[in-house]
């Protein structure tokens, strides 16, 4: 395995851990961007360059902007110290942490006897993905458009309601 790959994986995991442990939301968003970028690297190494591009552009680009926007809008830049102090208390995170660890361990056990050499196929190019997207899965694309429509309308309604409700 490439050292780069190892590094990317490590950065991903560490970044994720940093995301969930930050007190300040903006820091967490930044770490999340780091995580996503590292993940894009991993995707590239998996031969999915198209996916990596999307990850960078849409995820790290668009979605994270949403986060930042909301955080700034709500003025969450400063930690809510009274509340977040509790976070330092082991009581608050011990149980969930243990639960997540158990889930992780069990999943890892299921995957553990890893076998079989990694196949070394050619990378899947954007062409292949495009053929899939607009060939077999064209209906899915249409459906996803409805998903986006639903999200749009929901968000619209929620937002509109806020104004109208005042």
């Amino acid at each position: 395995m490439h050292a780069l790959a190892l590094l990317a994986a490590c950065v991903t995991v560490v970044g994720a851990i940093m995301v969930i442990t930050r007190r300040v939301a903006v820091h967490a968003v930044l770490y999340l961007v780091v995580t996503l970028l590292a993940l894009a690297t991993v995707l590239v190494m998996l031969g999915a360059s198209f996916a990596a591009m999307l990850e960078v552009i849409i995820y790290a680009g668009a979605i994270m902007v949403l986060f930042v926007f909301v955080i700034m809008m709500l003025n969450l830049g400063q930690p809510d110290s009274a509340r977040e102090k509790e976070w330092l208390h082991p009581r608050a995170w011990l149980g969930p942490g243990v639960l997540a660890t158990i889930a992780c361990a069990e999943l890892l056990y299921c995957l553990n006897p890893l076998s079989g050499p990694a196949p070394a196929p050619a990378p899947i190019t954007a062409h292949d993905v495009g053929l899939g997207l607009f060939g077999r899965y064209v209906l899915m694309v249409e459906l996803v458009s409805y998903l986006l429509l639903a999200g749009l309308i929901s968000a619209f309604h929620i937002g509109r309601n806020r104004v109208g409700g005042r």
Partner: protein
Amino acid sequence: MIVHDVFLPAPLLVVSSGIMVMLGATAWRRSVGRSFLCAMGILLLAIMVVGHHAGTVPDHGDSLFVQDRWTAYTAILTMFSTICIMLMSWRDDGIMRADEYALLLMLGTLGALAMVFSANYMPFFVGLEILGVSIMGLVTFGHRAVPGHEAAMKYLILSGVSSAILLFGIGLAYGVTGSLRFMPPIAAGGVSAALPPAATIMILVGMFFKLSAVPFHMWLPDVMEGAPVPVAAFVAVVSKIAIFSPLVRYFGTENQPPFLNDILCGVIILTIMGGNLMALRQADFIRLMAYSSIAHMGYLLIAFMCPGRLQSGAITVYLAAYTASTLGVFAVMDAFATPGGPDGRVIAQWKGVFSSHPFVGAVMSFMLLSLAGIPPGIGFFAKFGIAAVGVAHQRDLLLCFLIIGSIIGLYYYLNIVRTMMVTPSLPSRPLNRHVRPELMALVIVLGMIVVIGGLFPARAIHPLLPAATVPSETRDGITH
């Protein structure tokens, strides 16, 4: 070349293009009434074209969608429920202020239909998400904004978690089999034996969450409580049917994996007991219905667990009974609510309804009795079918819990009936002036369905499940 690979059941087509039409109409001139009418027309059309499809099934059989009698049945059930919910919410003044309600409802129905017709993880998952996102929007339509948003938030987080788990499971399955075909993964060469079960379990967790089986049920009461009454009905009915239909397909096509038995058993027991026990102490009608819906899913899973010639009848009748009775309860609740007065959400408000609104009280108790499984409602036959299936498979433990659960259920359903019979200390209020004729018609129609279905359930017993589940034996052994 593309068209050859596309197989699209007509209802999906109709509903999705209908949504476009509605969008267009909204863009042209906003009118809530028109969009409702339009939506109902589309749904009726979709019901009519159930069974037709566009395109052909690909030769290799790896189609995204599938169409058979089971899908047709559940699709009709779904769309019928949506029509009922539309009628229920037609002149609801909280909802009528926004015309996107009908749109969201249609989108949710589209998602549900996508799940119903799916033969592949992909449309299943996308449909699930469309449904989920629509529900998030719908939940916020209530009179009370904050609970609605809180409910939507809860639903969002939790369904996000469950979606992630589901997706992870699907991903594992895809990794194992290399295909997104909708069936339990089977260990193929090169991966560990523990991987397919793990994938199955993760998928199941996702499904159970949507089905609100205990211990993944917690969102349902909160969401239903925060939502307006018609939306609560939508959550309780349409999303349940939509998830149950693929569930049957998922495990119906193959022999069930052996480890599934224990898990299902445990979940069923937990679901029946949890749902019923928690319903016992509810003072809020909608929460009670939520828990009762959880318990009903538990009963339904019993039938799901016991393949055989009785299974299809049991499941179909139970679904129909559950749909009709639950919709009936919500419709009556809606009819009972008055703009300024009680909204019928608290059980105590139903005190003395038999004196003040005899018709409402009678229909309500009728629906509740049907839910409790007492004749002459269709619920009686439904529960009978479930028990028959259980006995045929000698699921003794489950049957015990079925009976215990039913008795507890009886208690809380009857408790409402009892409350309605209490003579009110206050003089009875004047009758609801805002009688909505379409709502009354809906209540009457649902009542008729429950009665006629209870008295003549024969029509619903045809084997509708995916062909593989029904043994090939014909009905020669039947007397008469």
